[in-house]
């Protein structure tokens, strides 16, 4: 039987005046993920602990937290990876807080929706018919398609901290994912939504998003591609 010490940042805006750290000792056998530790605390020690989770398999992006000073997904972080079983869990920095480890993602998803994260086609196509894509064209999507919208990059980006209307790395990576897709025919429809100072030009290649991403994606690369595409379209009117 091993023990892990969880230090959790707690704050309930409804009743607390300042955040505090609560410490819980979680006994476990074999392996323990941070998310399992949080479950154990909630079930056996403090039912008021709030956190977000869903898939428990690093696919949904709900349980992104700031664990031992790094952006991680609680479900894919094993306590044995952390030094001496000491686990400090904090909500993602620089995001409005709902409670304890739960951040307010309203803006994040509003910005995500703003870049039209769906395939835009010229003609109304029959949903029964597939839209062919070559394996070579599909490979361009390999990186951006793995984004799980956890918000780590968005939380880590100084440009987001400084400008609340900046779309942020996650939304722009998603714009890249569709702009680079050979099946997408958005042409000028999506472009005005990111070709401005609240879009790609607000990125100063600080690369915190690359450091933060638990999926090891590269939002900077996507944003730089969008910058290039936007400039080419302005200069030469070239589409795609």
């Amino acid at each position, binding site marked *: 039987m091993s023990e892990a010490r969880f230090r959790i*940042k707690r*704050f309930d*805006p409804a009743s607390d*005046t*300042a*955040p505090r750290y609560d410490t819980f000792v979680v006994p476990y056998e074999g392996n323990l993920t941070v998310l399992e530790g949080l479950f154990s605390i909630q079930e056996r020690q403090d039912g008021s602990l709030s956190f977000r989770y869903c898939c428990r398999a690093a696919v949904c992006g709900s349980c992104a937290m*700031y664990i031992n*000073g*790094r952006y991680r997904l609680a479900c894919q972080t094993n306590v044995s990876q952390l030094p001496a079983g000491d686990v400090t869990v*904090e*909500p*993602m*920095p*620089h*995001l*409005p*807080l709902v409670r304890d480890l739960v*951040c307010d993602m309203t803006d994040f998803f509003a910005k995500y929706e703003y870049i039209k994260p769906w395939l835009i086609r010229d003609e109304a196509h029959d949903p029964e018919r597939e839209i062919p894509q070559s394996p070579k064209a599909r490979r361009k999507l390999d990186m951006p398609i793995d984004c799980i919208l956890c918000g780590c990059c968005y939380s*880590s980006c*100084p440009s987001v*901290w400084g400008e609340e209307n900046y779309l942020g790395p996650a939304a722009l990576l998603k714009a890249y994912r569709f702009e680079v897709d050979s099946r997408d025919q958005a042409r000028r429809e999506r472009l005005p939504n990111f070709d401005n100072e609240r879009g790609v030009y607000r990125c*100063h*290649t*600080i*690369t*915190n998003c*690359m*450091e933060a991403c638990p999926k090891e994606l*590269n939002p*900077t*690369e996507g944003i*730089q*591609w969008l*910058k*290039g595409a936007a400039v080419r379209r302005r200069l030469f009117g070239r589409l795609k």
Partner: protein
Amino acid sequence: MSPVDAAATNVGAGNWKGLGMWAWLLFRIAGIVLVIYLFAHIGVISSARWSGHSTLNSALTLFDHPLFVLLDLLLVWAVLFHALNGVRILLMDFGLGIHRHKAVFVVCMAVAVVGLGFFALKAFSYIAAHHAGGLGGLV
């Protein structure tokens, strides 16, 4: 954001581990230093115009002091850092070396250090040649 909100939302926590973040911050600081220097430089040069050559001459005598020669080295570093990190950022804007931006930074800084070494040699030999006490003239 109110102070309570700021404390609750972890503002300022971490995020200072990435090299890109430091490169960006120092890049901005060096840029501001250079802008301030530029205006100071224009001010000193134009002092000859509005208050006669003796003002400029006394300013130049002051700048000949070893302390100012060392400050020049700081200026050289600001120029080299800003210019070479600027090259790195340009490369990234062309989509080059984004995956390897840390290695590109190291290479750029190596070039900057070599450049600084060259100018440091110049500065110290100047001080040695023109000030009898060498760096001792500082105190």
